């Protein structure tokens, strides 16, 4: 009988290790920027390289900053949702177009629609490094005081918005009132 029990015990241990391994998921990494001031930047806009956009544009406002690129499949996935979210006028969304091709980014915004108040063009990814971006898409929630309140890795959808963003926004606005 002992050998049969040993088999089951070994299996349970293996499952335990797998569970621990799943927990180690890199998307769960907390951003070092949480509750710290969001890095400042000033970059040309995707839509018009002669104009710039940057952190001063949204000083004093609560906004989303979305890191995106045309080569990233997850960005394509979340794009429709971002348009919807922008349409609801709940929160302004600023984009950072990260390590991308300007023409591709332009035609993306023209064809698929533009959810962003403005999108910065971060061609060489310097700003991305400041922001600790290690993949696209990533979405940061920036408080009115300019602090990073939350960072979401991966595509946005209604579930993450309701589950992760809304409670934090409610807590913040409640606190400031």
């Amino acid at each position, binding site marked *: 009988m002992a050998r049969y029990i040993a088999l089951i015990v070994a299996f349970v241990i293996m499952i335990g290790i797998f569970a621990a391994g799943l927990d180690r998921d890199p998307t769960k*990494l907390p951003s070092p920027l949480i509750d710290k001031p969001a890095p400042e930047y000033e970059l040309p806009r995707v839509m018009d390289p002669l104009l710039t956009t940057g952190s001063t544009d949204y000083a004093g406002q609560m906004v989303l900053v979305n890191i995106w690129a045309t080569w990233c499949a997850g960005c394509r996935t979340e794009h429709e949702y971002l348009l919807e979210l922008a349409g609801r006028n709940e929160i302004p969304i600023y984009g950072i177009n990260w390590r991308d091709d300007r023409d591709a980014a332009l035609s993306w915004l023209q064809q698929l629609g533009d959810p962003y108040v403005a999108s910065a063009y971060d061609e*060489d990814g310097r700003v991305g490094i400041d922001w*600790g971006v290690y993949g696209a898409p990533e979405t940061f929630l920036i408080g009115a005081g300019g602090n990073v309140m939350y960072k979401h890795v991966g595509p946005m959808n209604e579930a993450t918005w309701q589950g992760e963003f809304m409670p934090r926004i409610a807590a913040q606005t409640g606190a400031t009132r």
Partner: protein
Amino acid sequence: MLAVGLAAAGLVIASILTLQAFKENLMFYIEISEVAKGNAPKDRNFRVGGLVVEGSVTRVPGELEVEFTLTDLNEQLVVYYDGILPDLFREGQGIIAHGRLDDDGSRFIADQVLAKHDENYMPPEVAETLAKHAAAQEAALDAETGQQ
């Protein structure tokens, strides 16, 4: 009985050899900052990972040998490689290299360079290290601004 004894002995020897080989082929991932501190093994292979610094890729024209600098956003490491770089090797991209330090510990002699066939991908070890050092940079920045 003799056969059973021989089989048991064979099994024991095989297990020892296998474990020995396991130790020899085990390659640890070591962060570039640790390498810079001198905490990398001298006489065995290990792996490093980081971003290829923009503009750092140099080679003698017409030769295979190439040198580039890897960074984990904190320290840098010069990597030497004699071979064909993977398709997705680019400046600014996260890569992993297998190899060992040269004799004076100044260069990493790679025998394999890996980049993944997916633009979204960054090896998880690299992502973790970068995130950690981004945090450290942030802390340093805080300290500076605090002093002001």
